[in-house]
C-alpha cells in the first residue's frame, strides 16, 4: 500500500510537471512517465489486462506525440496568467476537494468493492462462457454490447481522421469554388 501511495504522488508530480513544463517535448515525456506509473498501479491492484493495455497504448501515444511535437516549429509555449483564472481555479479546486472528501466517506474502501453484480460473474463465469480469463468473458460475452460500442467509437474516430487528414481529393481553393459556396473575394 505504501508503494501505491508513492506511485500516486509520483503521478501527481508528473502531471504537474507536464502542465507546467515550457518545453513541449519534456511535457510529453512526463505524460509518458505518468502513464507507465499508472500501468504499474494497475498491476498492484491486480488488473494485468488493464496494465498490458495501458503500457502498450502509452508507448504508441508517446511515439505519436513525440513525432507531432518534433515536427512543430515552436517547442516553447508562451506563459500567460491572469489573476481571475488563478483565483477561480483555486476556488473550484477547493470546492472539488471538499465535495470529494464528503463523497468519499460513503465509498467502499479501495480494493474492497461491493461485489453485487460481479459476484455472480465471478462464480458462474467459467461455467457459462467457458473462458479461463474472466475479464474476457465479461468484456466479450456478458457485456459484449459495450465492447461493440467501443469498437464503433474507435472506427468512427478513425473515419473522421481519414476524412480530415486525407491527401486524395484535396485541392487548392479556386474562384469558382468560392462563388459556388457564396463567399466571393479573398478571405
Amino acid at each position, binding site marked *: 500500500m505504501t508503494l501505491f501511495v508513492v506511485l500516486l504522488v509520483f503521478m501527481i508530480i508528473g502531471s504537474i510537471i507536464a502542465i507546467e513544463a515550457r518545453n513541449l517535448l519534456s511535457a510529453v515525456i512526463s505524460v509518458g512517465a505518468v502513464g507507465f506509473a499508472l500501468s504499474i498501479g494497475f498491476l498492484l491492484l491486480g488488473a*494485468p*489486462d488493464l*496494465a*498490458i*493495455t495501458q503500457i*502498450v*497504448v502509452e*508507448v*504508441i501515444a508517446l*511515439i*505519436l506525440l513525440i*513525432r*507531432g511535437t518534433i*515536427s512543430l516549429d515552436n517547442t516553447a509555449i508562451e506563459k500567460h496568467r491572469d489573476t481571475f483564472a488563478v483565483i477561480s481555479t483555486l476556488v473550484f479546486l477547493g470546492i472539488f476537494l471538499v465535495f470529494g472528501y464528503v463523497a468519499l466517506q460513503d465509498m467502499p474502501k479501495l480494493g474492497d468493492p461491493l461485489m453485487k453484480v460481479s459476484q455472480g460473474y465471478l462464480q458462474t463465469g*467459467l461455467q457459462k*462462457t*467457458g*473462458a*479461463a*480469463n474472466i*475479464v*474476457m*468473458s465479461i*468484456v*466479450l*460475452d456478458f457485456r*459484449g*454490447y459495450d*465492447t*461493440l460500442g467501443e*469498437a*464503433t467509437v*474507435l*472506427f468512427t474516430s*478513425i473515419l473522421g*481522421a*481519414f476524412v480530415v*487528414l*486525407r*491527401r486524395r*481529393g*484535396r*485541392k*487548392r481553393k479556386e474562384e469558382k469554388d468560392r462563388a459556388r459556396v457564396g463567399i466571393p473575394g479573398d478571405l
Partner: protein
Amino acid sequence: MRGMTLIVKTVVRIVSAFIVLYGIYIILYGHLTPGGGFPGGVIVAAAFILIMLAYGKEIALKRFGDRSASLLDNFGALGFLVIALLGLTGGYFFFNFINKGQPFRLVSAGTMPLSNIAIGIKVLACLYAVFVALAIFGRAVHRVERGDLKGGEER
C-alpha cells in the same frame, strides 16, 4: 523521413517479426491469459510503426498502404458485428452460439476467440492508419498550404 541508420534497420528487421508474433499470441490467447484483442492489435500496430520509423514511409507504405489499412479496419469492425449478429440464430444479440468446449483449451469459449481476432485486426489497422494519417498526411497538407506542391498532386 528517409529512414534511420543501418544499425536501427538491422535490429528492426530482426525484431519486428518477433513483435508481430507476440501480438498474435496475445490476441489468440486472449480468452486464457491476460491480454485480448485490443492490446494484441496495438502490439502488432507498434511493429508496423517501428518499420515505418526505421525504414521510411515509402517502404512501409509499399508493404502496408493506407488503403489496405482502412480496408482491414472496415473488415475487422464488420467481422465483430457479424459475429454479434450471428448470435441471433441462437436467440439474441451476442449469443455465444458455438459450442463452449473444454475450459483452459485454446479452442474453447465459443465465439470469444473469433471476436478477439476481429477486434485485433480492427485495432491494428486503425492505429496504423492513425499513425499514417498524422505522420504522413499532415506533412503533405502543410506543404500544400505553404505552396511547395500543387494541390491534388501525390505528395
